[in-house]
Every structure is written in C-alpha cells, then in structure tokens.
C-alpha cells in the first residue's frame, strides 16, 4: 500500500468504525460463553462481543476506500486531515457515549 493510501486508510478507519458501531454493522459476532464466531445474530448463545466485528468491518471498508481513491487525489490530501478527522470521530463518540453517565 502506497503512503497516500495508508493515510486515507487511517483517516477513514475511525469514521467507519463509528459507523459500524452506531449502525451495528459487525462483520461477525463472537459468543464467548460457547466460544463460537457467527456471521449472523444468534440470541440463544449468551452474551455477544461485537467489537472484533466492528474493527474488521472498519478495516475492510477503509482498505477498500484507500484503494478506490484515485492516486493523484490521494497525494494532494492535506496532512492535517490525518488528525482532524480522527479527532472529530473521537469527539462524536464521546458525545454519544455520554448516555452512560446521565441518568
């Protein structure tokens, strides 16, 4: 992966991770009580871990976008976006997660 593509991957990852989290787009689910991975929801298998699946979704989607963006466009990208967009994603996440601290 070329340098500019790595930059796009990192810029998109945080945003797409939050999209995967917010819209429940886990690529797969892990049920730790039965130690099983499943593509789809299985309510009878106990507690579920979606975190692995969100990371997998964000990884695949970010890599796809990084390869899809034309190279000349990717190379003109301002370096500042590399921290501004992930920071915005973190702020958005923190705002959403306030739900745990308000009664």
């Amino acid at each position: 992966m070329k340098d500019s593509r790595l930059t796009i991957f990192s810029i998109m990852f945080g945003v797409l991770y939050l999209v995967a989290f917010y819209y429940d787009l886990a690529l797969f689910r892990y049920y730790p009580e039965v130690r099983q991975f499943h593509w789809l929801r299985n309510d009878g298998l106990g507690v579920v871990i979606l975190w692995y699946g969100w990371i997998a979704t964000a990884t695949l989607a970010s890599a796809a976008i990084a390869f899809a963006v034309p190279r000349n466009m990717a190379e003109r990208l301002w370096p500042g976006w590399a921290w501004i967009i992930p920071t915005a994603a973190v702020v958005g996440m923190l705002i959403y997660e306030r739900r745990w601290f308000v009664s």
Partner: protein
Amino acid sequence: MIVALLILHGLLAVALLGAITHQALSVLTIAPAANGRWTFVNRFRGVDATAYVTPIVVLFAITAIGGALLYPQYRIDVRPALEDTQNAAANGVFEIKEHLVAIGLGLLPVYWLFWRKPHGPETAAARRYLTWLLAFFVWWSFIVGHVLNNIRGVLP
C-alpha cells in the same frame, strides 16, 4: 492463564505509557529555556522522538491484541457484575476505552508513516497531534483498565 495474560498486558501497557509520554512531551512546541536548569521535565522531554515510533506501534498493537484476548473474560464475568450493581459509569468508561483502542489501531499506519519519513515542516503539526491523540488513548485505556481491574477495592 488469564491472570498471566492480564499481568503481561499490564506490563506492556506500562512500557507503552512510558514511551508515548516521552514522545508526546518531546514534541511540545514550548522549548526549554536556553539558560534554564536541566530539570527532570526537561530531561524527560529531551529525547529523540523518532526512536520511539516503532516501539510505540509494536507495543500498541501487541497490547491491544492482549486486551482483545482478555475481553471475553471481561464480557462474561465483569460486565454483568457491573450491570447488576447498576454501575453504568464503569461500563461507560470501558466502552470508551474499547472505541479509543480501535480508533488508535487504525491511526497507527499514518502515525508510523508521518514519523518514518522526513516530510518536513508541512507534516510536523500532524505528527505532533497524532502523537498527542495516541497519548490520550493510551492514558485513558491505562487508567480505566487499572481502575476496573481493581474496582472491587475502589468502590465502597
């Protein structure tokens, strides 16, 4: 086995915390006074920041993998106990930790790239802010991990 992994995870987190804190302070724009005393803080900041890049990337990735391996035990044993005791804030800070670690993993390629290549002044700000962002993620994760690990002793 799970206790050994937890201890290893904690030790790797300590190493990561030290490395990222050295680097985060070394890229502060405020330079120490030229004729100032060589204080502890100045010594702490006066490191070659580039030397920490690869160790930080490796430690962040390995520590995150260790956390991912420990996570099922947390999900089965700890989280339901927190829910039973109506401790939503503890669950909340842990949920934020898992998001920060995931976003941090995604940032590692660009962080490594901007530090590895001598891009010059146009990427200096991005390098600094990416470092501070990762430092925030690591500090949050470290503190939350330790508080939750000891929560039975912390709470009344």
